[in-house]
């Protein structure tokens, strides 16, 4: 088990607090609350400079820390409002409890990660029934009502909208993956051809770009040899022996 908090980027206010406390511990210095408060505020200021979003939670934790610090600077108990004192103690306990919960889940997350890694090596079968077996279709159940399906569609579409995309701009970008597939099909038919011939059917310049990228990709994989005697002559494409194994293109989404 490791409780070191190593992130140099402050993912959250709790993370920062944890980091400050544990890094002090590594220095083998006694951590004093006032050091902690000073550093916390310093980081808060730094983050504001970095124009990161300073959330209310950062401020709340800072406020709690300052209150705790102020409380200690006061001479004696009798001058302190007991209710306020109690509230402050509660706030401190809550903060500590959150820090502990945070560390607990961080630790158990590493166990889950290990479990996931272990099962990654186990591959199950996704093929389904043998071709000659036909399940009786009447037994097919949807498992959901039309209304539930609508709610599901609602959620998926909301989810996809949450990340802004450019779909509604209707750019209709041609797919390089598709162009790769098409080029391979054509080269399957003709062992040698040229780029102009395989792109003769294209209308838009963008499509031509997609095919050009596709050609480069195929050449990179060693599936195609592309040659050109000079800049004006046609690009001759020649199919080569396909290497074995899976080809993963960066154009595949």
């Amino acid at each position, binding site marked *: 088990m490791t409780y070191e908090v190593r992130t140099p980027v402050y993912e959250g206010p709790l993370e920062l607090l944890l980091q400050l406390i544990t890094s002090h511990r590594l220095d083998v210095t006694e951590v004093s609350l006032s050091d902690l408060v000073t550093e916390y505020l310093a980081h808060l200021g730094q983050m504001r400079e970095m124009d990161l979003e300073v959330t209310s939670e950062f401020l709340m934790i800072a406020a709690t820390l300052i209150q705790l610090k102020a409380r200690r600077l006061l001479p004696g108990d009798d001058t302190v409002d007991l209710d306020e004192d109690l509230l402050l103690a509660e706030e401190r306990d809550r903060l500590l409890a959150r820090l502990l919960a945070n560390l607990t889940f961080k630790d158990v997350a590493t166990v889950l990660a290990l479990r996931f890694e272990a099962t990654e090596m186990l591959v199950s079968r996704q093929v*389904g029934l043998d071709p000659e077996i036909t399940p009786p279709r009447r037994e097919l159940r*949807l498992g959901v009502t039309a209304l539930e*399906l609508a709610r599901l569609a609602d959620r998926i579409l909301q989810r996809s909208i949450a990340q802004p995309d450019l779909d509604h701009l209707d750019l209709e970008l041609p797919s390089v993956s598709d162009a790769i597939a098409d080029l391979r099909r054509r080269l399957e038919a003709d062992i040698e051809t040229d780029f102009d011939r395989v792109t003769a059917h*294209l209308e838009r310049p963008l499509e031509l770009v997609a095919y050009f990228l596709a050609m480069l990709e195929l050449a990179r994989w060693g599936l195609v040899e592309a040659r050109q005697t000079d800049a004006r002559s046609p690009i001759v494409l020649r199919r080569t022996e396909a290497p074995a194994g899976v080809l993963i293109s960066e154009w595949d989404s």
Partner: protein
Amino acid sequence: MDPIAAIEAVLFVADAPVSAGELSQVLELPPAEIATALRTLGERLAAQSSGLVLREVAGGWRLYTRPDLHPYLERFAASPTAARLSRAALETLAVVAYRQPVARGQIAEIRGVDSEQALRTLEQRGLVDVIGTAPGSGQALLYGTTETFLEKAGLASLADLPPLADHVPPPTVVEILERPFRPEEPSSDSRS
């Protein structure tokens, strides 16, 4: 390395017959050794009366279930686990139902994950089908729902699908997306 176990594993995950040549490449073993291992695997499965058989079919080798066990498999096909649609399949079905005709790429984009397997399942079950191809160079296949889907969902027609809430991006997003295209006018033009 145990070539017999490795071949068994490869054939287990394969969704089509695998040629001896391909096995030879994947396992980096000479064809003769592959041939021997294939024979041994077939004999071993038969000897211990496994539920699987190894068969050479057009184009290569494939594991199948033993024919005499097919009645159980047909019964299994109708049982809850086999008949139930996975979450991924249901999500894909929902997207196809409401966005048809829709290409595989668009479904993946909306769901945020590849949806090929889910689409294949839905196609096998007769809930979705290819209903056309997209115009343009890609010729992407376009999917839509089938009559079986309508029947199983208890709908008379697609027009009876429950309406969705209007999914428009919030104004802030629209504003950000429009910004670069907006003519820079000093006067406060108040579009959208």
